[in-house]
């Protein structure tokens, strides 16, 4: 019987461990802190962990985008809104008015996760079968990650790219309209 030697190099395992710890601790922090600001900071920790995982998987560009967009812009936006609505609004986490909500939620989450893991365990997707789809291009051809990603986005997924550009514009306009105060009824509404 040939022994299966685990040939992972130690640095990779350490990197994975670090990423995993950051992700899980941050996630647990998001869902347990009472203060929303604390939750937002935990979220940043998770995002960092995910960025580390990206780098370990040769998705350098995406790791950078993750930090810049997610941690840098989205979480900042969260913090702005928290400040806007009042930072000391605490939620009473210990009382749950819906009796069955927590157990059922836990049950649902456990079944989903367990099922996903079971699916992965039983399928052949994790054996490194190379993609034969025409839409895919080989990753490990030695080109820079950014160049590969750019080529894909600007040729194969061009339409999606243009659509998301339009989406961003719409989102910005929508957000401005939604958050606006109603100046036309200023005489009846008081200043808020």
């Amino acid at each position: 019987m040939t022994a299966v030697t685990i040939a992972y190099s130690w640095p990779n395992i350490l990197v994975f461990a670090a990423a995993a710890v950051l992700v899980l601790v941050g996630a647990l922090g998001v869902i347990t802190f009472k203060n929303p600001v604390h939750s937002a900071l935990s979220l940043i920790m998770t995002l960092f962990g995910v960025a580390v995982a990206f780098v370990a998987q040769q998705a350098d560009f995406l790791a950078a985008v993750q930090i810049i967009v997610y941690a840098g812009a989205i979480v900042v936006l969260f913090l702005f809104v928290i400040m806007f609505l009042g930072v000391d609004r605490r939620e009473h986490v210990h009382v749950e008015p819906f009796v069955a909500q927590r157990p059922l939620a836990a049950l649902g989450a456990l079944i989903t996760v367990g099922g996903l893991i079971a699916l992965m365990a039983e399928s052949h997707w994790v054996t490194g079968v190379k993609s034969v789809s025409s839409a895919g291009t080989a990753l490990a051809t030695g080109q820079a990650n950014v160049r590969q990603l750019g080529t894909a986005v600007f040729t194969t997924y061009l339409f999606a790219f243009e659509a998301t550009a339009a989406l961003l514009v719409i989102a910005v306009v929508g957000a401005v309209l939604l958050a606006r105060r109603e100046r036309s009824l200023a005489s009846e509404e008081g200043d808020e």
Partner: protein
Amino acid sequence: MAHVSTLILLLPLLGFAVVLINGKNMNESQIGYVATGVVGLSFVASVITFVLLLHDHHRQVTVQLFNWIDVGTLHVPAALLIDPLSITMCLFVTGVSTLIHLYSIGYMHGEKDYKKFFLYFNLFVFSMLALVLANNLVFTFVGWEGVGVCSYWLVSFYFDRDAASSAGKKAFIYNRVGDVGLLAAMFLLFSRTGTLTYIGVFEKSGTLTPTVATLVVLALLLAATGKSAQIPLFNWLPDAMEGPTPVSALIHAATMVTAGVYLLVRMSPVLALSSSGRMTIAVIGGVTAFVAATIATSQKDIKKVLAFSTVSQIGYMVLAVGVGAYGAAIFLMVGHAFYKALLFLGSGSVIHSLNGEQDLRKMGALRKFLPLTFPTFLIGWLAISGIPPFAGFWAKGDVLTNVFAHNKALWVLGVVTAILTAYYMSRLFVLTFRGTERFREVTHGHDPHESPWMMTTPLVILAALSVLGGALALPWVHHDTLEHFLSSTFGYVAPIANQSTLSQWGLAAVDVAAALIGLAAAFSIWRSRYEDEKLTPSFLEHVWYWDNFYDATIGRPLEHLAVFSDVVVEDEVIDGGVMGLAAGIVHSSQGVRKIQSGFVRHYALAMALGLAVIVVYLVARVG
């Protein structure tokens, strides 16, 4: 011949159509004369057809009007069968109808529904002719139903009287019960022989097993009891006297009630196959004749006496059919049409003269006031009592002679009934025309007046026919008796060939004696009194409590069932079921509604659980 015979049938229908369409533009006498005229012309056409038939060698002509039903193996043409039996029926139906139409012009004068009366009268004659002339059972059934519905309309002519409308309903419902029999017979015959025309059925009657033949005969008997008012479906006829007197005369004496007997005689080849069926027919006829005669002795209404008398006389006819004496039955039918119509029209004349009074206790001594009604009524009375040489003696004697040859017990019953017949008819005659005057308060002191010529002329003609009608069957008057004329249409004729002349004279003597006994008894009792509780017991007066019996056994239970259906089945079960279903849906939707709690987290939880289910399904499929 085809055209003339078609005219017989269609002329009354033409009259009906003319009065229906143009009636509002016609005055009373125009309507009356048109209606009477078409029936009279129909009679003339019948006579012509009769003469033509006599010269026809084959004595059986089928006149096809049009092809009616043609479905799969069922071929039913709308066709007429002209043969001795149908032409005999046509002759007396159209003849008597014409006389009664003429009578009605006078009797119904001034009625507000005059036009309606003649409409229904003409339609009735058309239906009766269709019944009689048809060459197949389905066309007969059309006429059968037609006379039933016209009878219903005419009996409930004075529909604002509760009693009249109930009587109409009763007549129609009893008829319909009988119709089940005719339908059952049709189904049986069609399933065994594949055809419904009379000639076709008779040709294939050999394929009927005795059981099926008996069933068919019993079914036909049921139909006949319904239409001809025999036991067990006879108690509609007395109630039907609520209709105007011409209606009673035509429908319930001369024509519709004979339809049942006609049907049985027409189907004689099938009757020939079932001796138990014929025995049943004979017993029913005999028993009905006796029971009705007993009831008639105790009635206090002049028309009711005549109604029960009709039931009794038809009982004789059915009895004759049962023993196979079809010729005698038809002979009695024809004679009875004459003198019973005469008696009814005469009673109508009496009622008319007394301003509508029908109670015998308020009549009496009318002899000197009604110089034409009295003698004609007298002739009718003598005829029905069986006094020679009037028609009744010959006809009833013929029937009883044939019965004697087959069943002595039924013959004794027949003779007893004859005594009773003479008795109650004589009682009627004495109470009406002899004895003391009891009508002064009804006529407010005036003398009763005789009826106009339109009413008395038919009386005279019918009286003449009652006198001479016996000649139809006497072999020594003309070379072809009625019986012989009709014999080609019969399937089974019981042989009475060996009746010696002595026994025939002996039986005739018994008949005369019976009539005289009844007559004498009635005269002696009723000349001096007009009311006697012991002689008119309420058991007999109330129809042997037959109506009460049916009410208790059929009427009340059905009523309870109806109430039960209304309260329980309709309200609780059906409504409950439907409303319950609706309520159940509402309740369940109230429950389902709780899912829409409005809380985002509930919805999110539902989605998460749904996702979990999908994941489990995928794992199960892959694994």
